[in-house]
């Protein structure tokens, strides 16, 4: 017996006016743009160096070395886009919110990932500061639940704000009992 493909795109039922999730309220720290740029730049410079080095030693005149060089050019162009465009777009699209005992986070620049977890089901709250992040005074908060599919990362918050949010989250989740499964 197969699932009869009745239409799932019928007009919305009355009393259910909302057909999609809104964006979370808060943006991340504006310094995140610079952090992401620097991050992509580091990766981009390394990639460019490696590709140039490889291209230098490719034999001339073979069809496959020409093809490889073109591939390299594409990769390098993607790198440039990542440095120039991605951080700004990512900043506009990355949002977070803690509301009504839920964590709600949206990430991604071309794709979009919206994650929701009730605080009653949160097991751990971590903050993480990488070396470059510390230069910019940023921190990630990761909230994990009992599901391996459910960890939620709020990226690139202002360091002080991250500490406050972590403390708040820890306080709220510490009140919940049970094994959060």
């Amino acid at each position, binding site marked *: *017996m*197969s*699932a*009869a*493909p*009745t*239409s*799932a*795109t019928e007009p*919305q*039922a009355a009393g*259910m006016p909302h*057909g*999609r*999730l*809104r*964006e979370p309220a808060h943006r991340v720290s504006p310094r995140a743009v610079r952090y992401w740029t620097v991050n992509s730049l580091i990766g981009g410079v390394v990639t460019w160096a490696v590709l140039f080095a490889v291209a230098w030693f490719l034999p001339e005149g*073979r*069809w496959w070395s020409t*093809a490889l060089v073109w591939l390299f050019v594409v990769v390098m162009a993607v790198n440039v886009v990542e440095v120039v465009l991605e951080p700004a777009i990512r900043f506009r699209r990355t949002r977070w919110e803690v*509301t*009504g005992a*839920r964590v709600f986070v949206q990430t*991604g620049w*071309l*794709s*979009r*990932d919206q*994650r*929701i*977890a*009730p*605080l*009653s*089901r*949160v*097991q*751990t*709250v*971590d*903050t993480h500061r990488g070396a470059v992040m510390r230069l910019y005074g940023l921190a990630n908060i990761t909230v994990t*639940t*009992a*599901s391996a*599919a*459910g960890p939620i990362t709020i990226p690139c918050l202002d360091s002080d704000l991250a*500490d406050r949010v*972590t*403390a708040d989250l*820890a*306080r709220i*989740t*510490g*009140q*919940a*009992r*049970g*094994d*959060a*499964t």
Partner: protein
Amino acid sequence: MTVPDLPPPTGAPVVPAADPGPAVPGPVAGPPVPGGTGQWQRQSPRMLLVHPVRILGSFAVPLLLAMFGVGRGDDGGPWWLLVAAAGAVIAVLAGVASWFITRFRFTDEQLQLRTGLLSRRILTAPLDRVRSVDVESSPLHRVLGLAKVKVGTGVDSTRIELDGVSREQATELRTFLLRRTSEENAAPGPDDATLRPGDQPAGPADASGTPYPQAEAELARIDWSWLRYAPFSLSSLVVVAGAVGVLSQVGDDLPVDQVEVAQDAWAWVVAQAVLVLLAMVAVAVVVGWVVVSTVTYVLTWWNLRVVREGQGNLRITRGLLTTHSQTVERAKVRGARMGEPFLLRLVRGAELTAIATGVGSGGTVKVLPPAPRQVVTDVGHELLEETGALTMELTGHGPRARRRIHLRHQWGTLVVAGLLAVPTWLTDAWWFDRLPGWGPVAVLVVLGALNAVVADSAWRNLGHGLTERHLVVQTGAFVRTREVLEVAGVIGWVVQQSFFQRRRDLCDLVATTAAGPEQVTAPDIPVDAAVRLARRATPGMLDDLLA
């Protein structure tokens, strides 16, 4: 709790495993602890026999190789005997050491297991968190009247293994460990169903709250007429393919080229009857498939009984040589998965797996072998304690999802055809100029048609639904899989949209859970349908998050 009391934000568990507060309603006056409280116990002395045999078994292949290697040498003689003797001595010593070192005990709150010679480890399981107990006996264990007990908790995905307890002790342990948990849950205490402010499920709440004082009820028992479904399970095909591979390896190693008669015979066969040979191989594979699958089926599912115990816990016993007895706490059975591989679908068969928390990695317990679909749905509904989830009509994901799935499946076609087109049409290097000019077009057409069939089947199988207590998602092209998850077990939602999905207003809706594979995904679902499904499944969880 004030702010200075907070744990530092280091990632330490915020919900402590053993909450010392008033949450735990004191030690439960359960049945007496097997072997007494606080006493370190060893495995049964009979384990001293198991260890050497098992270690010899793991040494068998290298030992055999060593024997052959040494035995083939010209000076032959007693060398391989020495090697064998050394192996045996090492095995016995290691076995004794392992028996001597491994101990376990029960405290009032914990089960503790101590192992390790050089790096000593103590594994613990909080007794009030025990969710599942598996008792397993290999043939060797059974000869000696022993069993291996695996204890799963909701805290950790690894399980504690007590190997080598006597069979009576294993049964005793099983009752002791799980009765303790059920009493804990029956008490009006930290029942997790009452502690979710944001997501009270619709309808009757978590099953763990309701008492379940009933007699033991049998849900299913092996019916040997099901054996006809054995060859239709794909897993056995894998086994046979592996066996054929191994055999062909061995065949290569046979010194055929040294035997002229064989060589002549081979040449004659090749010359006369390649087709006959191929047919014979095909027949051999099919016969092997049927035999292997049937034997595996019998070995695995011998004496299968699925039982709902007096307190509602689920117990599954099975096995001909190695016997398994798996018991899962009732409240931790979070759902079911019905799998219908392509071949099994042709004969109206299906398989059933339970999705649970705290049953080890994977989180699934096989409940039924390939069996008639009717039986699978009936037992599945008993398992879920709700009728309908496995038989209901599902809502499809609509024409946009269909276009999306078709396009995604054709990417592979384009890539393969493109990879073939470049050398065929653009270069004359090497042997590429010998490739036929129509090759890429043929590949494009044939592969495209195949992928279209697969994509359409994937779309037709795709669907979602919601019963009063369960979320239902069906996916798969070759293996149709229907996953049913208790909505009370949903601990969060993820709405994922790739770039292309955003353009079509589709998304992958992921319900995260602690049970089973820890997520249930409804792929390529229209965004409004996804939001509606999530809102109805967990009322409140999405409130004021909507646009």
